[in-house]
């Protein structure tokens, strides 16, 4: 019914108030926004990385690599345990989740089982990660349980997110977003990050720091030629010099409590670090027992330095010297303080947009929106005159206001394709008015009165408008479900646009025309000529 119904006017006023309330913080400067009273909304449009510049990294946690590493550690644990128990072995064969040990003397089988079972003891929460099984012959298998193997991935991703967060925080990047995606992936979004390469370097390093003894009995030459003792490994330093290092880890980064940039006695940049209780004790014992021997400080499989032990280091603190610039030293310190990643992180997708390019995109989007809007306004005024055309222009303005308000409120990300979605929304929003007006024309031409034409116009067009908008909504929902990144932003803008344009186009026209009917009491429909 086309009369000035009270609830429609109230709804219109409410939506206008909503639009103004949530859209207007966009007009204020950050300082003005901060000064607003607490109950007022402060959210502004959340611009995507393509509009404000920044870095997007998609990281994948290399769970397979981590499992492989833990299986190697299990092998080393078994080797060391059996040696300390003085049980001779003939082979350690790693498999997909543990190691199979062959005991040389069948008489020692029970002793070997007892020794290995210590490694499979439950932890404080009562869950055993590894189990010992006796196989045929004189073989024993020490392997991770199914649960432990399956749980490794989830735990690794959780831990990685924590570590990445700490590392990015230490860079001082503003408002980074770190989210989990799927089972093994992490998305890092850092708006305005000026040096994406640094971001990637800092995130990507595993930062597993270990202290291992140099195997001085082995010959470096034969190791390079391929003959490495079973309990040792061949590693290189930054200059490419080879070292044969015992596999056994004396102290690892987990026992580190703090690291900071310092300087050595000659004034060069160095890294000071401090161990926790366990670390200090182990480090003290080892250095006391190995005076005059060399140990290696290893970060992510590369030897950082290999100092000779001068005296027992019992204080729990030490220093790493090397060729550090202040920047590389502080990055290293941040890595150590942030903790080690449980598994390597591979960057599988990276997008960077500079702030200038983003600003340019905003400008281009703004100009096109303004021009697009102007075209629609001119067209509607030309096609339907000041009254009917003007009403749809008012509807469009309300639509724009509501979209900005809804996007600010929901903090949906506005992307460059999102701006395109916005402009298209305007074009399609006009469609609702066109459908209504064309219907009214038809009815007026068929000889109906003004009131009857207006009434029929709304009633008959409504079904079509709903159908037409629902199909757009379906397309938008699909984009949201399957899309990634900018497509989702586009989909969200489109979704908001469908709702706001149905509301604004129909409601503004109903209230506007009802008012006109009441005030002007027209005899003829002006668009029916």
């Amino acid at each position: 019914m086309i009369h000035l119904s009270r609830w429609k006017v109230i709804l219109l006023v409410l939506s206008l108030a909503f639009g103004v309330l949530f859209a207007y913080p966009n007009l204020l400067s950050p300082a003005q926004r901060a000064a607003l009273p607490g109950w007022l909304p402060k959210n502004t449009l959340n611009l995507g990385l393509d509009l404000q510049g920044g870095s997007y990294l998609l990281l994948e946690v290399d769970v397979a690599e981590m499992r492989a590493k833990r299986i190697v550690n299990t092998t080393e644990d078994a080797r060391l345990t059996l040696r300390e128990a003085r049980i001779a072995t003939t082979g350690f064969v790693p498999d997909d989740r543990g190691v199979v040990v062959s005991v040389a003397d069948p008489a020692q089988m029970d002793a070997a089982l007892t020794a290995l079972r210590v490694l499979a003891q439950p932890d404080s929460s009562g869950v055993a990660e590894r189990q010992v099984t006796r196989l045929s012959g004189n073989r024993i298998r020490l392997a991770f349980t199914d649960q432990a193997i399956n749980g490794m991935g989830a735990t690794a991703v959780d831990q990685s997110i924590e570590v990445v967060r700490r590392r990015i925080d230490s860079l001082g990047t503003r408002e980074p977003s770190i989210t989990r995606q799927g089972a093994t992936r992490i998305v890092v979004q850092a708006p305005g990050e000026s040096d994406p390469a640094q971001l990637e370097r800092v995130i990507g390093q595993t930062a597993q720091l270990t202290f291992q003894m140099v195997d001085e009995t082995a010959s470096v030459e034969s190791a390079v030629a391929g003959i490495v003792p079973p309990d040792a490994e061949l590693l290189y330093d930054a200059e490419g010099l080879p070292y044969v290092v015992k596999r056994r880890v004396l102290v690892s980064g987990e026992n580190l409590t703090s690291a900071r940039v310092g300087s050595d006695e000659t004034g060069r940049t160095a890294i000071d670090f401090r161990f926790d209780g366990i670390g200090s004790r182990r480090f003290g014992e080892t250095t006391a027992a190995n005076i005059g021997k060399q140990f290696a400080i290893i970060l992510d499989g590369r030897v950082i330095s290999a100092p000779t032990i001068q005296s027992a280091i019992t204080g729990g603190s030490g220093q790493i010297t090397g060729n550090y610039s202040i920047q590389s030293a502080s990055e290293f310190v941040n890595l150590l303080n942030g903790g080690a990643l449980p598994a390597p992180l591979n960057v599988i997708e990276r997008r960077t947009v500079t702030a200038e390019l983003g600003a340019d995109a905003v400008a281009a989007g703004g100009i096109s929106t303004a021009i697009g809007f102007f075209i629609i306004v001119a067209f509607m005024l030309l096609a339907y005159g000041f009254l009917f055309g003007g009403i749809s222009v008012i509807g469009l303005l309300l639509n724009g206001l509501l979209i900005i308000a809804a996007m600010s409120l929901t903090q949906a990300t506005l992307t460059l394709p999102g701006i395109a979605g916005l402009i298209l929304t305007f074009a399609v929003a006009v469609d609702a008015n066109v459908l209504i007006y064309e219907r009214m024309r038809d009815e007026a031409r068929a000889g109906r009165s003004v009131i009857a034409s207006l009434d029929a116009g709304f009633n008959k067009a409504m079904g079509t408008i709903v159908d037409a908008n629902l199909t757009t909504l379906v397309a938008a929902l699909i984009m949201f479900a399957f899309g990634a990144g900018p497509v989702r932003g586009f989909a969200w803008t489109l979704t908001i646009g469908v709702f706001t344009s149905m509301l604004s186009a129909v409601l503004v026209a109903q209230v506007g025309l009802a008012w006109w009917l009441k005030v002007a009491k027209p005899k003829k429909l002006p668009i029916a000529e």
Partner: protein
Amino acid sequence: MAMRGWPLIKLLPVKTNLRFVDFAKYFAGLSVVLVIASLVGVFYPGLNMGIDFRGGASMEVAKPAGQVLDLEATRSAVGELGLGDVQVQGIARLGSQVDDGSTAVLRFQIPEGRDQTAVVQQVETAISQAVGEVTYSGVAVVGSKVSGELFMSGLLALGSAIVLMFAYIWFRFEPQFGFGAVVGLLHDVILVFGLIVLMRLEFSLNMVAAILTVIGYSMNDTVVVFDRLRENLRKYKTMPLREVIDLSINETLTRTIITGITAVMVLAALAIFGGEALFGFSIALMFGIIIGTYSSIYVGAPIILLWGVKRGAAVEDAKPIKLGMASRP
């Protein structure tokens, strides 16, 4: 009323009586040819896949304003790194609409097993050695695993959009309408692909969004025509189907033209002023809207004619529907 003199109202015919269905055969022929040509084009020469779907890296390289970036030197410097096919393409500078020769976009693959970051650094070094100091404004690297997944999800999105539209129309109208609408949709999507191939536009995630929007718009247009068709079928129970179709298209024609022109003009503004990033996107949308309008007149409705439509048992018994081309299935 002082509403005279509005030129557009006069320009648009008040009441048309065009015999659309009479031309349906010829346009159907044209559509079939274009669809086949587009399908062939998608496979040969094929889509110009962006790095979203192909994997690899894309970088925007720029010399300071006013200086010329030697594209050939850049190409050969990067070519020597053994990265396979390296594309170097001049584009318009930041904030301008014309290509002044200072800016280019570089695309290359990251060979299997090589570190992304390291390769990008090598490329940066090689470029600065060859052409001097440059800046990099936008860099994107997509691993091959991710690009495969993005491609699959893109296809899935397009496929499910079409299926859902079919279901929606089937539910809201009748099976024949759903069939007509989906043939129209497929027609539009395939022709947009054809345009992408023809214009060598980059097929990227944004392009998938553009196609999905075309689907939404085309559906929108079809629904408006079908809605009127359904209404008229009830209203004129004895009018031959082809006349009802013609009548319905004519009745909605003014609306179709106004909405279509508005959307196309707005998108043209976007294509001209939206810069490099939105050009392909808006061109595809614009074309899709034109095609979508055409198809709702010449693909969807004639298919209903071909298929026939149930108009209530009583009417059917009393007076068999006269069909020019075919009867009900």
